[in-house]
């Protein structure tokens, strides 16, 4: 890659934000997803609805929260409800358009591991675990996954299956009780993967400017299919970077 004046995180955040539409109801976790949804809100989607699992509906934070339950979220929300209500009345009821997920590992069918590396009973690395992810994965109308691509994270076989994507593919998800459409977009530091309509295997559909698709293939632990007509994701616009950096700057100040 050539020298760029923005980071991989910024590129991924901007690319993901562009996928969100005005009025979209987003279930967001802390970190990059929170930055994505707030960036979209400040740019092109002023009426986007942010739901944090801590219980805030319609939060409009001016600083990026460090934790999912910062006071800023409650103070700017349309409603503050209990966590059981968030999961039952809002997520499970099918009111969430897009759920954002991260993970330590993803497989070719978009299934996710955020639980352990190594065996569950004797892990080499104990990860934080499921949190809201499994039910976001099954009950949101669709999910977007944001995850940097490497052979360690894009793996042939998950060490643990925390959150369902398309299961074994080929329609397997539809035979479960999962209600939403599953991972319809995976945003990486190389580009955008989407499921193939038949096998539901993730394919590289678009790359960022000046990214070699073969580099993405090499960063993937399974033989990654590349779309024949690969699209190009344009680099972040100055305005997108400005707004994103202001968001982060306010967070650092507010720390």
């Amino acid at each position: 890659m050539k020298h760029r004046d923005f980071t991989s995180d910024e590129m991924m955040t901007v690319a993901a934000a562009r996928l969100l539409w005005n009025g979209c109801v987003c279930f967001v976790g802390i970190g990059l997803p929170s930055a994505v949804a707030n960036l979209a809100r400040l740019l092109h989607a002023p009426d986007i609805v942010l739901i944090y699992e801590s219980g805030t509906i319609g939060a409009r934070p001016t600083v990026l929260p460090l934790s999912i339950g910062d006071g800023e979220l409650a103070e700017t929300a349309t409603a503050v409800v209990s966590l059981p209500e968030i999961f039952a009345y809002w997520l499970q009821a099918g009111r969430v358009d897009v759920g954002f997920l991260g993970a330590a590992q993803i497989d070719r069918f978009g299934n996710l591991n955020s639980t352990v590396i190594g065996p569950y009973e004797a892990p080499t690395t104990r990860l934080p675990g499921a949190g809201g992810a499994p039910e976001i994965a099954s009950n949101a109308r669709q999910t977007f996954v944001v995850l940097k691509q490497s052979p360690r994270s894009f793996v042939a076989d998950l060490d643990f299956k925390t959150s369902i994507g398309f299961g074994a593919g080929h329609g397997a998800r539809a035979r479960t009780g999962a209600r939403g459409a599953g991972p319809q977009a995976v945003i990486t530091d190389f580009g955008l993967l989407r499921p193939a309509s038949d096998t539901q295997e993730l394919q590289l559909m678009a790359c960022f400017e000046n990214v070699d698709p073969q580099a993405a293939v090499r960063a993937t632990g399974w033989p990654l299919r590349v779309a024949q007509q690969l699209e190009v994701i344009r680099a972040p616009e100055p305005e997108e970077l400005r707004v994103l950096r202001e968001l982060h700057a306010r967070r650092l100040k507010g720390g």
Partner: protein
Amino acid sequence: MAVFLSLREAIARHVQDGQSIALEGFTHLIPFAAAHEIIRQRRTGLHLIRMTPDLIYDQMIGMGCARALTFSWGGNPGVGSLYRLRDAVENGWPRPLALHEHTHAGMAAAYTAGASGLPFGLLRGYIDNGLNAVNPDIRRVRCPYTDEELATVPAINPDVSIIHAQAADGQGNVLIQGILGAQKEAALAGRKLLVTVEKVVERLDTHLNSVVLPGWVVSAIAQVPRGAYPSYAQGFYARDNEFYKAWDAIGKSRERFERWMDVNVLRAAA
């Protein structure tokens, strides 16, 4: 009926070795002061229950209070790992920790069932999920109308639930404001309920639909200003995000952790 006690007395009287206890509060109102008192009183063999173990259980686990943990997300929010939790799971230090692992939605349903006097909670969840294989508590029922399978979790009814809140009045009625998490459900699910509060007032300044726990469901109340620090209490003090970041380095090393706990918890006044 709520009894006002010192924190030391409340823990001494109500928290016993080997019990299941839930110290709830989702990011907000985490009852750190109560946890520190439990650590000072050297309780052991506890089955700790909490959706997000957070620093509070990282500290209790690292100090050897726990034999088991029921939880659904065990990280330092926005920062990274809980190294004391990881050390217990990965290396059995200072002692092994049995995990009863759930999802947030599962634990929310389990607390709600516990608060509701139901033996189990019901949810659309745990679909094609590895937790089904490692947690035998996750089961299924069939819907008597649609024939669908739905996930079940057993009700959580801790021996003792502990929460922190903004205020209590003279009758022990407790006011919670802001982000609620599963605090009310955990509180009502407990066989006993201990509450620490920022302040005690003559009358709660509430609005009609404020979240208030009546004093007659509270076993004991202790006034502990800043009792949720380094988490926060809406209207009183903000979350100390810098401390959460600093904990990463403190918690990473056994020695540094023990030194920190010794200075800041064991030798601190109750």
